[in-house]
């Protein structure tokens, strides 16, 4: 069983990435924060007694479900303003506007020159916008697989789909990102 300190340290380690992940999905800061808070509460209330090594998987699954719940609530609340298009399969890049991308705090880091920092921040914004433009399942699979560093089986378990589907989603996501970045002249 994870101690209270271990539980808090675990949450501290994952909270920022969880926020960004939610943000890429819902594109609203307040909603993303609510989803992360809700996920944290559920983890602590229902799974606080679980061993520490089980927490990452559980948290990823809770976060995924909380995000889906948010979309369901949005759909019920307002049929006109919904993000159903996120759930549709879309193999091409789409018409995402770079101006709608996330505004970030651009305080210069001391070790980087202003130019390097600006360039880095610009690339990050482009990557984020392209990730936001991915179909929801591809984005989810990509972020879990490469950012959260879950293996294929864990990702499949968290997403509630087969391992083959995870591989397909990841492969398509990587291909779409590579293509989009190449078009923008960005080499990672």
């Amino acid at each position: 069983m994870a101690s209270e300190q271990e539980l808090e340290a675990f949450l501290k380690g994952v909270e920022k990435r969880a926020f960004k992940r939610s943000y890429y999905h819902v594109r609203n800061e307040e909603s993303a924060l609510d989803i992360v808070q809700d996920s944290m509460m559920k983890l602590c209330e229902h799974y606080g007694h679980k061993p520490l090594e089980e927490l990452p998987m559980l948290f990823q699954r809770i976060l995924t479900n909380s995000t889906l719940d948010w979309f369901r609530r949005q759909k019920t609340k307002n049929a006109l303003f919904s993000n159903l298009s996120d759930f549709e399969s879309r193999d091409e890049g789409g018409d995402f506007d770079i101006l709608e991308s996330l505004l970030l705090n651009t305080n210069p880091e001391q070790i980087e020159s202003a130019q390097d920092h600006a360039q880095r921040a610009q690339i990050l914004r482009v990557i984020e916008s392209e990730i936001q433009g991915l179909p929801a399942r591809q984005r989810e699979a990509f972020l879990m697989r490469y950012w959260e560093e879950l293996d294929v089986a864990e990702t499949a378990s968290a997403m509630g789909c087969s391992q083959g589907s995870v591989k397909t989603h990841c492969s398509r996501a990587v291909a779409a990102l590579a293509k989009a970045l190449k078009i923008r002249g960005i080499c990672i």
Partner: protein
Amino acid sequence: MKPFFINTRAPNPAAEEFGVRIAARLDDSTRLLPVHVAERLRLARVQAVKQGRLLRRQETPVFVTSSGSRWGKKDHFGFWGRASSVLPLIALLIGLVFIGILQEQQRAHEIAEVDTELLTGDLPPVAYTDPGFAQYLKVGGPD
């Protein structure tokens, strides 16, 4: 840049590496979070841990034994530890039963004494049922 995908389910090291590089870039985004977002996340974390703690305390019944030690679901007590906490209760029950028996015996003894007095006295027992004699005893008798 060469296209990554021929078979989407076959492992592709180049695609894997690209994914990892993109993810590494995304780590920057977490370092650049606005202060108010980081603070809100911190508060959410603290609140969640606190809530979990309160919930676990409610779920775990805790008994305090006579020796002051806690006996809860999570504590590991042996048989004798648990037995020792029940012993005072057993002793109390035995004491109450013993006192009850003693009082019963004492009452029977008193009744027997009264009966003996009645039977061995000079007056016949029928005299005590006479209202005049009862009134006589009430006002003081011969004394």
